[in-house]
């Protein structure tokens, strides 16, 4: 179990792995995630189940190497085993009845938005997709997204592919063109989700985002992933991670993500090429 069967480098710090995890693959639904631990002394950290194959018993994870834990995972090769892997966690995303949904993925957020788009497509919903990246080298899953979308728009910050600008610019174009949109699903960096939410609030479009809060257990046991939605406090790991966007306190979420900024740097410089766990 937990053996890495395939590995692909999508961009220099963006990797995709296919992992043997039959129990998780059997149950996984769009919106759910896993928690991993790669090293005896490692952190527990969450990644979205980007895709799954129930027959083969595999799940696909796509991740950006941003710090020690994701780098340690990125160091693993085909044949290596992930020390601990638990899931599927969180609730499956509840899609509203809709004829047309715009799916937006920003940066690595394309990975978690893909299973949403795919599920909607399989249920006969018309999917319009927007994917955004800093530049064309960081784009991935373009073909996969195309397959499940009626239309696909690409934006890059520097204009090296698609439209120059942000995903919100492309979304605004669609809205202004008079397209009827029943729902928007936006997943990506917190500031992007906030911007999308502000825009759709203005036009009264129902919007879902998926929060990437800091997590420890992922089972509702620590409260570290708490998020204020309207007057209520929810735990992203068991009540989400997907929530209706318009009453989320995004500023609080962004602030909470910065909680360990200094501490994270200390680990980064120490871990290097740490030992791997090989199946025996």
């Amino acid at each position, binding site marked *: 179990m937990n053996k890495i069967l395939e590995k692909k480098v999508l961009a220099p710090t963006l990797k995709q792995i296919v992992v043997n995890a039959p*129990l*998780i693959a059997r*149950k996984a639904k769009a919106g759910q995630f896993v928690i991993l*631990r790669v*090293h005896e*002394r*490692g*952190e*527990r950290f969450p990644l979205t189940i980007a895709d799954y194959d129930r027959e083969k018993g595999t799940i696909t994870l796509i991740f950006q190497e941003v710090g*020690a*834990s994701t780098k340690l995972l990125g160091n693993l090769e085909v044949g290596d085993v992930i*020390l*601990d*892997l*638990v*899931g*599927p*966690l969180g609730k499956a995303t509840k899609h509203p009845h809709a004829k047309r949904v715009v799916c937006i993925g920003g940066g690595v957020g394309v990975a978690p938005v893909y299973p949403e788009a795919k599920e909607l497509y399989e249920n006969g919903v018309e999917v319009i997709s927007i994917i955004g990246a800093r530049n064309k080298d960081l784009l991935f899953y373009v073909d996969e997204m195309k397959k499940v979308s009626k239309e696909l728009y690409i934006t890059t910050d520097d204009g090296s592919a698609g439209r120059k600008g942000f995903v919100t610019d492309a979304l605004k174009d669609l809205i202004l063109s008079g397209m009827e949109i029943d729902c928007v699903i936006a997943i990506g960096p917190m500031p992007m989700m906030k911007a999308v939410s502000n825009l759709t609030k203005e036009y009264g479009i129902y919007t879902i985002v998926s929060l990437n809060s800091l997590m*420890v*257990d992922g*089972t*509702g*046991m*620590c*409260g*570290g992933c*708490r998020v*204020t939605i309207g007057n209520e*406090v929810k735990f992203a790991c*068991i009540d989400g991670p997907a929530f209706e966007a318009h009453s989320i306190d995004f500023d*609080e979420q962004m*602030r*909470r993500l*910065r*909680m*360990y900024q200094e*501490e*994270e740097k*200390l*680990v980064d410089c*120490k*871990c290097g090429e740490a030992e791997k766990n090989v199946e025996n």
Partner: protein
Amino acid sequence: MSRTKKHPMPCQPVEERIKNFSEVALGYDEQTAIAEAKRCIQCKNPRCVQGCPVGIDIPQFIQKIAEGDFESSIEILKSKNSLPAICGRVCPQEDQCEKLCVVGIKNEPVAIGRLERFVADWERVNVKPKGKQVTEGKKVAVVGSGPAGLTCAGELAKMGYKVTIFEAFHQPGGVLMYGIPEFRLPKKIVEEEINSLLDLGVELKTNVVIGQTITIEELFAEGYEAVFIGSGAGLPYFLNIPGENLNGVYSANEFLTRVNLMRAYLHPDWHTPIKVGKKVAVVGAGNVAMDAARTAKRLGAEEVYIVYRRSEEEMPAREEEVHHAKEEGIIFKLLTNPVEILGNEEGWVTGLKCIKMELGEPDSSGRRRPIPVEGSEFQLDVDGVIIAVGQGPNPLIPRSTPSLETSKWGNIIADEMTGKTSMEGVFAGGDVVTGAATVIKAMGAGKNAAIAIDQYLKNKG
């Protein structure tokens, strides 16, 4: 003649221990244990036994210590309690066995807990483990590897059932592993005691969340003929006051899990970080609060407050923990209720606004109700806050098992004696049924459920 007082427990000196995570209480040596054992007058009708939720034959195991026959002593203990090194350390003895000891009427009671710890520790050093046994009976699933689940699994394995424990975390032990700190219950001891229990022939599957990875119904479909749920009370409560989501505010669960299970006190060598302020307020006064406060001190906090809305008398923590906390310089702010957590522009905690309380008439719990004193608000300057005001049962299992009846607080409803729930073949016990209680009560519930499961499976044929 018996001495009037218990033989004192040797401890690490305060100045040293607040700088490390090693165990505070060091344990009796053989001589002291024998001398303490001799304080027991070997009652014909021992009252102490009634105070022990698992009914250990206390005079017998103590007698064997007095005789220097530690091997027989541990056998007597283990016939009733499969985790004696743990219970000897963390049982609230003053409310249980020792409370009823006759010696305690005029003098200090016999130090039953310390003696239990002594023989259990002696065994771990002197007796070789028997090695893994194999069982081949009917399949039973146990959810959760805290004291309730472990005990239930061990008892069933002894009866010959093929037991599998499913645990959500990557390590077994429940609160013993993630909650109670190293300096009070060394994790090596927990691991050893769990291993000797698993050696009875219990299979352990970590990283499986029942309700998410597999549901209770699916366990039956996979051939398990009965299920015991011992999933504990892990859902942290908050105060619901303004500022609770500021950076630097933790639930005690998160704070302790980061430190104990994830070893954040060894950061950055271990990768999980923790933020401890220079001045930390811990809200609450149970064992959890004492553990959080003493942990914060060891992580370098200069001033640590316990903020509690009632008085010392009502504090639910074990006596020994309060005593150790005071020795270590924890500052008790009693009859004090937090009303707001204050923060700066970047969203970090800067203070805790409190109001003074006074005690009024007794409330439904029989304790005098604390009432705010008007105009007595004041501010504690702190840069860390830890909320330790209790935990409820985790909702994942009830949510995914509609036919399982729960109370309005989300506890699984189960028969007190047998653990039987509203669902055929499903039993439950420990904190998930009673709400946060004690290790030994959870073990008692696990044991009773094992007996009931055995009967159920025999009747079923």
